[in-house]
């Protein structure tokens, strides 16, 4: 992991609140693996105070891509960045997705909801290169929430799209689409990133299927390097439950190790 205060924006596409930044950051790009993240200082001012975690969406030579949705002050500033602007990046951080053992020929289902699709593009490319058959399920509330649809359609893996309001693709939850497909053709492994309700449903589905799954969790982070203990999630580890740091032990965890809070 490295700090590169001299990273440079080389591309910026946007769709309403969603943004795709391409950043030239050779040393970090060279070390990056799917599922890892970076901590970004969005400006050189003391406000906002903390870096923001961004999962790595893709790698193209010495460039990394980041896909995010504006949600607060930090991401709003990031959304104003233009090609030529500098950026201060710390990364790559965390433990990413693990490919299936004896990967070639295996069938992997990747399930992404909203901005949670971000790390799954990098993963899909990596798995594809390993000979894994990849099927991506990409869902959102409405068609505007799945702006990367054309990018996934252009890639050479299978895709399925779902919108809650039926404005594009399957009408309903992406987890429902997943369950239908998985019943017809059982995957060997499942990878997912999205909001908590999606994880809850999917955790039950993969348990029923008896298929291993890896989920990439998200949290507010103070430091990204394991020092502040601010980003914990309840995880089964070494035979017991504990608050485990998402930045250091994750962000990717085996779905069977993740403990979800009781519904209130």
């Amino acid at each position, binding site marked *: *992991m490295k*700090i590169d205060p001299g990273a440079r924006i080389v591309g910026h596409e946007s769709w309403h609140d969603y943004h795709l930044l391409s950043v030239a950051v050779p040393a970090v790009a060279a070390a990056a693996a799917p599922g890892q993240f970076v901590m970004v*200082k969005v400006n050189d001012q*003391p*406000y*906002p*105070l*903390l*870096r923001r975690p961004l999962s790595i969406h893709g790698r193209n030579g010495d460039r990394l891509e980041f896909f995010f949705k504006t949600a607060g002050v930090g991401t709003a500033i990031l959304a104003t960045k233009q090609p030529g602007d500098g950026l201060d990046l*710390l990364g790559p951080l965390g433990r990413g997705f693990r490919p299936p053992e004896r990967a070639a020929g295996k069938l992997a289902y990747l399930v992404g909801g909203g901005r949670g699709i971000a790390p799954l593009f990098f993963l899909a490319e990596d798995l594809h290169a390993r000979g894994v058959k990849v099927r991506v399920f990409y869902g959102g509330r409405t068609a505007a929430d799945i702006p990367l649809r054309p990018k996934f359609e252009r890639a050479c893996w299978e895709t399925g799209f779902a919108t809650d309001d039926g404005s594009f693709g399957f009408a309903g939850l992406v987890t429902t689409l997943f369950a239908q497909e998985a019943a017809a053709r059982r995957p060997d492994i499942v990878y997912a990133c999205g909001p908590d309700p999606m994880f809850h449903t999917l955790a039950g589905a993969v348990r029923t299927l008896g298929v291993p799954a890896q989920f990439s969790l998200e*949290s*507010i*982070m*103070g*430091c990204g*390097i*394991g*020092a*502040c*203990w*601010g*980003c*914990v*999630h309840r995880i089964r580890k070494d035979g017991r439950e*504990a*608050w485990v740091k998402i930045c250091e032990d994750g962000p990717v965890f085996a779905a069977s190790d993740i403990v979800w809070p009781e519904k209130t």
Partner: protein
Amino acid sequence: MADLTVDLGFRKLRNPVITASGTFGYGLEFQPFLDLERLGGFIVKGLYFEPREGNPPPRLVETASGLINAIGLQGVGVRAFRAEVLPRLRDLDTAVIINVCGDDDDEYVRVVEALGDERGVAAFELNISCPNVKRDGACPALAPESTYAVVKRVKAATAVPLMTKLSPNVTDIVGIARAAEEAATDAISLVNTFLAMAIDVETRRPKLGNIFGGLSGPAIKPIALRMVYQVASRVRVPVIGVGGIMTGMDALEFLVAGARAVEVGTANFADPTAAVRIIGELDRFCEEKGIARLADIIGTLRLA
């Protein structure tokens, strides 16, 4: 290069910059980013005798120029620290300081007794001021009597130098500092975080799992500075200034106010190299102003 050394009485530091407990992990997390031996010292994460669960998330919320945390002092406990962490720290040529926590006075004593004979511990920092482990921020540092009692007991239990870290959530900081001094603390560090909260108005729920947390960062610096000045001018033991230090200039304000050293905390999150950068800024300030010894500016606030 100016002479940046400072003297805490019980220990000379190569420079006045110490990293604050809870913002620097066990030190090892920062080794990829900076040379720990360039620091005046570092204070490891607060240690209870037993391993500690910590609070349910969310544990952090960023506010205007500040950070509220309610980690709840999650940590590995004395046994794991002694077996797995301290051996990797003790030979470092810098002041390794252990932040000591306790649910009651007995536990503070147990921690210092368990670690007091260990080689490579420069000092204990007695954390009697964490606002997010008990209801409504209760802690010994909220009253002079309870401060005196715990410092007295811990001091009697160990020969290792003792820094006592005070809370800003009080009406009379000087009275509490004096209580710690009377109980024979070797130094006083202040301030810990300010009891604070934030609310999500969409859900009308608190933004922290613990409801309350401790506010740190640039937002608290002017208040911390005022308290450090009040205390430093009224006690004889060395005072270590803590609160929102992000730059060399911030650190200098505390030194001029009377702090013999400073702790850098929240800045470490935004920039893992912050402490080393601040040391460089102190050196540059001395060079530019022709100050041969940084320690000469300690307590030099001009009032007339």
